[in-house]
């Protein structure tokens, strides 16, 4: 397998404060990888650095192309969809407009229409509410909308920032099931950042554990889940 995304020696800064201290990892094409760690470990910063939303140094390569120096929208146009923390819903627009925005970089209008239908099949609740203002959806529904909006890009790689945040456990399970399905059936490579380590490890095939801006552990998700020392010292369950 070839690495689809290659991150080498990534260092990121918020003003004078360094948040990432030389982080390296790789994602294989078709994989579902999770990036775990405590609050403030640098998970969100890592995703933001990939999309050039924070000042960073180091090398990030996506399908052989360097991402450094590209604007956020140009990174997205390469096929990297980013579902940000807080979901980034356009609350004053309708559900359907949110989906259309996800496909704003595409020009194949017929395929966009059929993709919207496909999203409604994945997430029936969105079809019921397609004319509703997105801000009126519940947290879980908004997270579904955010995932659907990201898929409308027809991404090669999807980055998800704590999709489980603020959701009821049952809804999180549903959501993760759908993510697994998207990964297998639509062949979208997924990197999901999570604090809910137990659930994320069940879902993922690869896992990285990050602590104070460095990777401290990596490997097969099942092995990490079954390693009691790792679980106790880094994942806290």
């Amino acid at each position, binding site marked *: 397998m070839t690495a689809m995304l290659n991150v080498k020696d990534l260092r990121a800064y918020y003003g004078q404060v360094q948040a990432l201290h030389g982080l390296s990892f790789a994602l294989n094409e078709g994989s579902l990888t999770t990036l775990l760690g405590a609050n403030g470990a640098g998970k969100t910063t890592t995703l933001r650095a990939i*999309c050039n939303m924070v000042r960073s140094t180091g090398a990030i390569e996506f399908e052989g192309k360097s991402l450094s120096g590209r604007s*956020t929208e140009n990174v*997205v146009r390469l096929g990297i969809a980013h579902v940000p923390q807080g979901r980034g819903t356009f609350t004053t*627009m309708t559900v359907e407009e949110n989906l*259309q*925005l996800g496909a*704003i*970089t595409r020009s194949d209008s017929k395929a966009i229409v059929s993709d919207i239908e496909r999203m409604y099949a994945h997430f029936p609740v969105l079809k019921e509410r397609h004319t509703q203002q997105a*801000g*009126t959806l519940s947290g879980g529904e908004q997270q579904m909308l955010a995932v659907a909006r990201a898929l409308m890009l027809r991404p090669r790689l999807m980055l998800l920032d704590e999709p489980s945040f603020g959701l009821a456990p049952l809804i999180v399970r549903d959501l993760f099931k759908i993510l697994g399905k998207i990964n297998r059936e639509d062949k979208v490579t997924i990197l999901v950042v999570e604090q809910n380590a137990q659930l994320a490890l069940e879902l993922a095939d690869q896992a990285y554990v990050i602590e104070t801006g460095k990777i401290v552990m990596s490997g097969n998700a099942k092995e990490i889940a079954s390693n009691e020392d790792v679980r106790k010292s880094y994942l806290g369950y």
Partner: protein
Amino acid sequence: MELFTNQVLAGVATGAIYACMALAVVMIYQAIDHLNFAQGEMAMFSTFISWQLMQWGIPYWWAFLLTLAISFAGGILIERLLFKPLAKAPVLTNVAGFIALFAIVNSVAGLIWDFTIKQYPTPFGSSPFLGSQLISTHQAGMIGVTLLMLVGLYLFFQFTRIGLAMRAAAALPESARLVGVNTSWMIALGWGMASAIGAVAGILIAPVVFLEPNMMGGVLVYGFAAAVLGGLSSPLGAVIGGFLVGVFENLAGTYIPGVGNELKLPIALALIITVLVFKPAGLFGRAIVKRV
């Protein structure tokens, strides 16, 4: 009663112009969170360009369309050269930028076309509209052209992809970038459109206030009043605010003793202050439906 109807209709006609100015101001406010004090001067400059084109023998409507195109390009140019570099600068730096733009545009217009007051033609004529004494054809034309433009803008923002992208960029810039919208160019596009809308306002009001470099000063104050009244976060509110201010101004001038023509402008200012005190978000200010 006829006086009343007459004043209301005349108010709707000038209100259309205030609506245009308010809309232009709101469009830029939505994009960059600053009030463009130079919006009126830009409109004045556009009007001079159309006048110059007509002096060179270009027919009215061709000059009109050409001026819209030039104003659109000019608005984009101003954004790229002056306000894009100021995007991350503090508020006061931006305010200084707007004031500089105001002064520059005003004096350059005076330099090129001097400060003498000029007649400006109307394609509609000034005879009574449809034989009625209530409203002139030019006033009817002002209302008609404005409504046509407003409908066009509504369709553009509601039903085109680029309109959707512009709305997204104004609402949530970071999320817009994450779906691949080039937010920086959407802001420039907003400037171009605001500038062209201002040009329409200037060209339509010029036969009434006459053409000179300070012609838009009062109009812009009314435009601000309309924008504040309608709510700076609502383009629709700004338009409705424009019509309301136009009618209110005329009725106050006619019926409140001692107001008359000279005291109309302070009424606009009083209106701004009253709205800011009692309803800071304006009549149509954003009421977001939110579920937690």
